[in-house]
């Protein structure tokens, strides 16, 4: 849920990167953090385990500047992908305005992607939300690897609604900003 402050003329929106563990969610945020000037992005906070896997969430605030007279800020979050951390995933979806679902393109990850999508819908439903009510986009990540599903196979498996989808190599940054721009637009469109 966007926070719309008419006193300070500020809008705050929450965007969550969701998807299977090790799919590249944290890598997306790290690339965004590296590329944007410090005035546009704040500090990135990662609550990670010693082995660098996301334990609770990553958090990166962005300041998009003024959009139609409103200072517009986005809070980007990632969820932990590990199956056993569902309580954390559910918590982070509270008040979500837009979702980037990061799928791992590797063939052997297809079943995990499908399960993660199902898990996301289930967790959204706890807040009375559905994939019809929350804007979301898909990112097919790790396109640089060898044994990957085709774009069409991924579309057929996890994009039945035909929302915007992007191929990405998050470690190199390709597709990262296209994805962010698409979800940002979708979220801002909801506010008019």
């Amino acid at each position, binding site marked *: *849920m*966007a*926070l*719309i*402050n*008419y*006193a*300070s003329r500020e*809008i*705050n929106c*929450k965007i969550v990167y969701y998807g299977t563990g090790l799919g590249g969610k944290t890598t997306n945020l790290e690339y965004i953090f590296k590329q*944007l000037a410090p005035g*546009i992005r*704040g*500090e990135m*906070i990662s*609550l990670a385990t010693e082995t660098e896997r996301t334990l*609770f*969430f990553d*958090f990166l*605030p962005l300041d*998009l*500047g003024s*959009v*139609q007279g*409103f200072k517009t*800020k986005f*809070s980007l*979050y990632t969820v932990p992908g590990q199956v056993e951390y569902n*309580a*954390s995933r559910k*918590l*982070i979806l*509270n*008040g*979500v*305005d837009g979702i980037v679902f990061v799928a791992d393109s590797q063939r052997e990850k297809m079943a995990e992607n499908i399960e993660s999508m199902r898990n996301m819908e289930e967790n959204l439903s706890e807040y009375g*939300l559905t994939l019809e*009510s*929350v804007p979301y986009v898909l990112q097919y990540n790790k396109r640089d690897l060898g044994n990957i599903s085709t774009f069409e196979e991924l579309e057929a498996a996890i994009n039945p609604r035909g929302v915007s989808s992007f191929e990405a190599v998050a470690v190199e940054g390709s597709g990262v*900003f296209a994805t*962010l*721009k698409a979800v*940002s*637009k979708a979220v*801002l*469109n*909801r*506010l*008019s």
Partner: protein
Amino acid sequence: MLHRGTGNLVLTEEGIRAINNSLGNLVMDSGAKAALLLDKSGQLIAAQGETNALDTMSLSALITGSFGSNKAIANLVGETEFRRMFQQGQSSSIYMAQLVTHDLIAVIFSNAITVGKIKFRVDQMLDTLNQQMQAMYNSTPEAPFRAAPSAGPKLSDLF
């Protein structure tokens, strides 16, 4: 008209003024350093006191997260939730309480002040804050943007 699917929270000028007034009084009466009001998604609604030195955005995300994870702990010991939380540091501490709207108030205070005093003052203020936040949730949403597409070029400039 705004989509209510994701239930946007609209903060009106009068509403924010009233809340800032409550938080300001709380800071003054208790001697706390700062008082923050956070919404349940982890965003800052209002803050009063010495807030310049604070990274309020990160604080909001982390406090909301820790409150949420403590709710899960509560469930494991047979409680539905912990409505209050207290974090004690070397020289300053944080006291947190949940409103009926599930938004949170967090008070940062020097350890020269007892947690009992802070708790007392927060409890005194809770009813007022509950009413003020409920009024905001009930206010009629109005779309902030007249036309969406003009956000497009702005985003292209940035990313």
